[in-house]
């Protein structure tokens, strides 16, 4: 246990040092802009086209959420997901591209603590960037009239767990495919369409909704929305929280099960 902690901590410190010597500014700004423009689009649309009002079916489906608050929570959740996935799922393929994957494979460090350390760093980094988006939302006058701190914390943990689990599986797929661009962007687009990010996913046809239920980000967003948008206490959100954690566990186990084979394949191909 102590050894695993030290692997995670060493990975976190290494990534921290590397990133702050050459911070990927344009990458971070690009990701922040996605959130900013999503919010900006809704703001302008609501005021210049909708005249401040939205359709009744939106209010009915979301339980009376205000549109901008709904979008703000969604944009923040989406940016969190995207940034965390960009860091964590690309950890292994980045090692591969830089030529250090072989060294990592023969090191006695376990893969889970390595990935946890990487994700720990990503969490710190992403928190700052999502905070900036939150600041932008506040400038536009978005407020959270009723929110429940404990449930919000649970929602944040659920989303982190969901993203970590997806990242492990996606990371394994990436080193097998030897490419990151197509797989990562397909996942991002699927999340933005299916997981109730900028609109309630009950708008979608039923098969798409079933597909959405297979992604743990959907239930994590439900918990986060309940806590931040409607101020629901943890007891009302237990069902979705348990769904999210169970799905995340499934993804994590599958990812960890596939990782050794994926690493073998990646190592074989590079020689």
């Amino acid at each position, binding site marked *: 246990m102590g050894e695993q902690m030290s692997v995670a901590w060493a990975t976190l410190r290494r990534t921290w040092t590397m990133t702050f010597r050459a911070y990927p500014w*344009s990458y971070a700004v690009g990701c922040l802009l996605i959130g900013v423009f999503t919010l900006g689009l809704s703001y302008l649309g609501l005021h210049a086209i*909708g005249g*401040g*009002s*939205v*359709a009744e079916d939106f209010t009915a489906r979301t339980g009376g959420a205000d549109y901008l608050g709904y979008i703000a929570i969604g944009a923040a959740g989406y940016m969190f997901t995207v940034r965390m996935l960009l860091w964590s799922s690309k950890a292994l393929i980045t090692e591969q591209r830089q030529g250090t994957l072989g060294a990592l494979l023969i090191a006695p460090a376990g893969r889970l603590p390595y990935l946890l350390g990487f994700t720990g760093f990503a969490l710190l980094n992403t928190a700052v960037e999502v905070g900036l988006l939150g600041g932008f939302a506040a400038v536009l006058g978005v407020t959270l009239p009723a929110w429940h701190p404990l449930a919000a914390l649970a929602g944040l943990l659920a989303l982190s767990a969901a993203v970590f689990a997806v990242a492990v599986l996606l990371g394994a*797929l990436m080193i097998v495919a030897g490419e990151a661009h*197509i797989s990562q962007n397909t996942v991002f687009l699927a999340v*933005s*369409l299916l997981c109730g990010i900028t609109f309630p996913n009950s708008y979608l046809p039923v098969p798409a909704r079933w597909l959405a239920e297979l992604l743990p980000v959907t239930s994590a967003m439900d918990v986060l929305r309940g806590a931040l948008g409607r101020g629901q206490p943890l007891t009302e959100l237990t069902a979705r929280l348990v769904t999210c954690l169970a799905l995340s566990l499934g993804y994590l186990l599958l990812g960890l099960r596939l990782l050794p084979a994926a690493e073998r394949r990646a190592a074989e191909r590079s020689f």
Partner: protein
Amino acid sequence: MTGPSTRPAHPAPPSVELLLLAAADRGARPPHPVGRTLPPPRPGTRRPPRPDGDRLATRPLRHAGKVFAAEALKQHRTLFGQPLVLASMLVWPVLQLAATYYTLHPIAAGSAAAARWPLAADPAKLLGFLATGALAWAFFFSLVQSAWNFAYERTTGTLELLFLSPADRLVLMLANGAGALLQNAWLLTCFLGAAAFGFGSLDVAGPWVYPVVLLALLLPAVAWGALLNSLMVFSRDSTFVYTVLDDPMWFVAGVRLPVFALPGVLRMLGAALPLTGSLAVVRGALLEREGFGELAPGLGRLAVLCVLLLACAALALRLGEARAQRTGGLRLS
């Protein structure tokens, strides 16, 4: 678990490659043995007129044809290493379109929206509005991507080779953009075209509209690509330009919102982008049944903008190359 490997088992269909390769090879052979000894053309220097007049008339076109074929082949080889790329080019815009439609639906279906934006009242029209936006966006963004890729010629050292070759610089920039456009947008164009006909949300004045629409998308996009490519050749940080032109471009150009919804400053910024003008023509012609008279001012503005973009591209190339010859550095200033 059989993901695509870096060396695909099924390479891109040989027919296209062979076709393009043949075209490029045919082009690479000079029409006349004397052609090999001619000095490479430089931008801005004009060769003295030669006695055989009819060959001279076909020369620039044939030269451009060679460069276009070679660049298209290069683009095809760089882009289609994996067959999966094709799916991404078609699937991503469609997913994005669906997400945007559902995001705007609560606003457009609101009680106050129809008075401000008549198009919003009809879901099919709203989808048509967003689909034309997605199509035009795909056209112009593929050129941002091409310029981004072009900047790699700097780092990999092939830019010197390109500049040493007898290919005309501006034609090279145009060809690179056009090649990227062809690779990226043809499938989406077919798909959205078929969808639009099936959906019945098109409202056009006559069949002459379609070629006009295609040209209003194609020509400004290629000019835009030439400018971006020329700037990228002399820029040290291409990622930054990519970031600046990715999301901000759709926002200010009215890809997902009508232009009247934007505040004045953003509208002015948008007016400088050719995408905005192209979209105005495309939407006017396809969704609002505008005749040639109504489209003409927009087309005129687009033409002026194209000439300006090309002039800027030629100027950037001239300045950059002059500086490179003087200092050895690839920068504009």
